[in-house]
């Protein structure tokens, strides 16, 4: 039996390399009827902000070729209610929990990090610096390496929790952002968030989404994600979590080969609520069949 344990950040060893992507796994408990969520490497919760957010109005999702666009607008219940209503349930379900956070400015992030610091039942923070509606002086944090680094450094000061910085793919050079964030003290990186896209309702002559543009996810983006993971893996020494269109065990294994220490399953959870656990089981089966002893031997072993 292959040893599936991976260390995705110093001191954060997961039982296997399959996690769930923020915003695609609710607060976790919604999946409990379908499988034992404690069997996943970790679950990453819907992006949390300080205050609850009601999200965008109008159409929020639409399907595109082998993908989907979402413009949820980061609807969430806010950190306070998460801690009182949701985290205890996740603990009862024995899930390994990583909390995804975002804010409107650097202070928001820092405050959230401080608030979550030391709370039992949180394994790490994932900082979403790639939300299209969060700007640092007109530029998204996720696009400007300096701004990203400053943000990570500020968050770093406020918490002893391991930090995973989630990168945007909508950049000219993701390697620069990755390096900046690594230097600023991020313990790991997760990539990619969604590509910015748009859909048009021809007959109504208007954008499909209430928000005009939205985030593209699903199998369509896998080649871009795989490329970025591969590129970043060549230059950083912190662990990488690969995300983007992962729909089955073979997809997940490709990301591991490219250099990801773990993966997050996103859109696939919507189509099949059991996708993440089936992927975890499939990865195990494949590596067993290959006679692989430790998944860490397999990671980054692309020729």
């Amino acid at each position, binding site marked *: 039996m292959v040893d599936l344990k991976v260390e995705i950040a110093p001191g954060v060893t997961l039982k296997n390399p399959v996690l769930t992507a923020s*915003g*695609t*796994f*609710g607060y976790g408990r*919604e*999946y409990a*009827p*379908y499988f034992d969520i404690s069997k996943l490497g970790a679950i990453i919760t*819907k992006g949390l902000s300080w205050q609850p957010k*009601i*999200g965008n*109005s109008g*159409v*929020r*999702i*639409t*399907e595109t*070729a*082998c*993908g*989907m666009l*979402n413009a*949820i607008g980061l*609807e969430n219940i806010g950190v306070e209610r998460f801690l009182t209503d949701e985290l205890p349930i996740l603990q009862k379900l024995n899930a390994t929990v990583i909390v995804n956070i975002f804010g409107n400015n650097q202070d928001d992030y820092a405050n959230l990090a401080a608030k979550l610091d030391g709370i039992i039942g949180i394994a790490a923070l994932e900082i979403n610096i790639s939300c299209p509606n969060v700007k640092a002086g007109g530029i998204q944090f996720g696009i400007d390496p300096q701004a990203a680094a400053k943000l990570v450094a500020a968050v770093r000061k406020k918490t002893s929790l391991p930090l995973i910085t989630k990168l945007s793919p909508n950049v000219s050079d993701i390697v620069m952002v990755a390096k900046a964030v690594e230097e600023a003290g991020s313990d790991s990186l997760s990539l990619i968030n969604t590509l910015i896209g748009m859909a048009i309702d021809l007959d109504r002559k208007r954008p499909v989404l209430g928000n005009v543009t939205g985030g593209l996810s*699903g*199998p*369509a983006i896998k080649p871009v994600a795989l490329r970025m993971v591969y590129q970043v893996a060549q230059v950083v020494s912190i662990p990488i979590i690969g995300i983007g269109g992962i*729909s089955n065990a073979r997809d997940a294994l490709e990301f591991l080969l490219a250099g990801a220490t773990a993966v997050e399953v996103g*859109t696939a*959870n*919507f*189509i*099949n*609520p*059991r996708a993440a656990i089936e992927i975890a089981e499939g990865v195990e089966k494949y590596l067993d069949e290959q006679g692989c002893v430790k998944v860490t031997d397999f990671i980054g072993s692309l020729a």
Partner: protein
Amino acid sequence: MYLFNSEVVKNQKLTQNIFRLRLKAANDFCRAATPGKFVMLGSDDGLFDPLLRRPFGICRWGSDWFEVIIKVVGRGSSQLSKFEKGVSVAVHGPLGNGYPNNNPKNDQKTLFLVAGGMGIASIASYLFSALDRNQSLAGTFLFYGAANYSELILLNELTAADAFGLQLQTITDDGSCGRQGLVTQLLTHELQSRPQSQVFACGPEPMLKSVQKVLLEADCDGYLSLENRMACGFGVCLGCVQTMINKDDDANVKTAKVCTQGPVFPARQVIF
């Protein structure tokens, strides 16, 4: 909630672009079905286009099968509509909260069912469920509107429900069957003489909006079944939310997930 691969038992073409699919299901699934609940259906071919599963109302069911009625409007419905006997279909359901239990006999209330276009698939699930349990439909009216005669489906079965007491009135945009006009006209008219009735409605958003208006004006309760776009169908994508009146705080609005908190909602709560 069940997740399984089912098999098409029968695919019956109802109109040029409306198909009735009967699918196999386990007893447990069928026992969990109630009128107004739905399933997410997708192809089982391992291909990614279409990507997401699509929501369809559970229109009728037996002990080991259920039926959906599919109108072809895009790639997802088109694919499903072509599945013939024996094809495997991925099923997730029954999902959501259907219509409230309503026994007109006990309540001594009139029940108005209002269906516009494909809304009939949802409304019919109430009727079929009654028929299949040999429950009387005395005091139940069905107002069923569509663009034209050829878009009216299930007419044989609905007419046969006469014997159970159902009073059926059809109406079409072009007058090709029943009266000419919109289905809400029928409701408005009958509601005048029976303001204390119960109302279940399903149809396109503009119709539901006007049903809501009629209900509010008559100060009558009622339920609307919404059909917002869905990515997941089980409450995790937040794609299907509908703005609702926040009962906790009247000044404020909240959002509700149509898939898990609905698709059937009290008409008063929905903010269109």
